[in-house]
């Protein structure tokens, strides 16, 4: 996997990045909060800032503008191109990633808003250096031939993963509901549900 070009961390941008992280994750103590009331709120932008995102369990520094969407940050800045930019309006689900375990459209979320959240992308389900570590759901997508052109697949996999994690053994109605935000023009939904079912039953996949 290639790495994005070196960005360099200035002390100032690092502090700003951690300030947002602090607000989003820990909140403030009562005393600090009272002092904060009489201070103008912190501001970011409009230029670039370095922020820290937690992606697939790893802290990643990334330089973004306030207007950069999470999807653009992942694809263009972090070289995580699994999530796809298709409609860029939250209508297709191709950009689905898990934010604190829930599937969301990364094209409708600003990257800055993801500070302090646990992000999971399709890249977290496989390790190119260790094929055996591939998540059983992904193996079952392959085993069930649950894709044709494959463009919707990363988003479909993330919605399927969340469905499995939240429901254990989902019913067909639950699967239909959970996949209803992912458009597949090849019509692979039946196979996708098969892959979910197989994974729920503990079948490891494999060809």
């Amino acid at each position: 996997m290639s790495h994005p070009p070196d960005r360099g961390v200035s002390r100032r941008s690092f502090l700003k990045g951690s300030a947002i992280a602090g607000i989003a994750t820990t909140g403030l103590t009562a005393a600090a909060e009272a002092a904060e009331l009489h201070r103008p709120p912190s501001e970011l932008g409009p230029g670039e800032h370095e922020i820290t995102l937690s992606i697939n369990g790893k802290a990643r520094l990334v330089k973004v503008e306030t207007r950069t969407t999470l999807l653009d940050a992942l694809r263009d800045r972090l070289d995580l191109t699994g999530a796809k930019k298709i409609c860029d309006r939250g209508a297709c689900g191709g950009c689905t990633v898990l934010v604190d375990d829930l599937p969301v459209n990364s094209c409708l979320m600003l990257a800055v808003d993801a500070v302090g959240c646990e992000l999971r992308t399709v890249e977290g389900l496989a390790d190119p250096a260790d094929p055996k570590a591939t998540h059983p759901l992904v193996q079952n997508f392959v085993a069930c031939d649950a894709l044709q052109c494959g463009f919707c697949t990363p988003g479909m996999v993330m919605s399927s993963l969340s469905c499995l994690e939240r429901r254990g053994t989902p019913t067909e109605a639950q699967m239909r509901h959970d996949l209803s935000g992912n458009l597949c023009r090849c019509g692979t939904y039946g196979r996708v549900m098969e892959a979910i079912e197989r994974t729920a039953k503990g079948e490891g996949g494999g060809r």
Partner: protein
Amino acid sequence: MRPFTYVLPTSLEQAAEAATQPDTIVKAAGIDIVDRMKERLVTPQKVVNLLPLKRELSQIAEQNGEVTIGAMVTLTQLQEAKQLQGRAYDGLRRAASTTGTPQVQNRATVAGNLLQFTRCWYVRSEAFRCLHGGRGPTCLAMTGDNRYHAVMGWSDCVRVHPSNLAPALLALGAEYTTRAGEAVRRRKLADLFPADPRAQNPEHTLEDGEIVTALHLPAQPADTRLGYAESREKQSFDWATTACAVRVVMAGGKITAADLVLGAVGPVPMAKPQAAQLLVGKEPSEKLFLRVAEAAFAGATPLAFNAYKLPIGKAVVRAALEEATR
């Protein structure tokens, strides 16, 4: 999207103050606003982000039967809230569950849903210069492709109000609290929508810098039921073409009180008290529901391409009534 300065308040006081600055908008999850900023329909210099206040603004609490819903409760949280599981809230949960997609529901907030900008394809496209917001001389939908537009309550702009939650919340008699500077105000939810929904008036009546902080559902009498039904072209990621929320209170097999609100048929959610009144004191019956549905759409004035909304809307009213009285 144009560059902007992002304001990160740590208190509601700070947010309310920052929101009064010129060329500033307030954003929660941003499902609607990020979309409009991408289209350059809004190009603010500053965006006040409410997400740092999410913990404070996303509580759901019940006291003496009154349920208070934080403005930033997501549509997913709304469906799962233990305080909202009874039959009196069936229609509210259903309205939330039909909104957008699961991905949208996981982020979209209750107040954001109520305050979303119209989905009129002329208004929402930078390429068109329509009367809405004073961008052009006439309402382009009035004589253009108006298949998804208003069939009642319109004057010089035929947009429809897109919120799924609004009819359900209105039928429950909801109120809303806002914060503007130091002022905290609580009003009837109907006041959030303009009484005279002309092109120059925005979708809501909030003043500059006024932030919705909570919604309140009054205690419901025993055996209250809320039905909700809608028509739509797609089962996912679509807005209703017609919608109806109906609240009935049942006693001894009869309806003792009723409220009926239509969605997606006018520039604001349309309460229909006269249609609802027909239900009071009666036993539920197919014949009665037909009369109520006719009354709900009495006096409707459809446009060239949306007369289909009348028969479908009436069927939707009956479906909501059947659900509520089943």
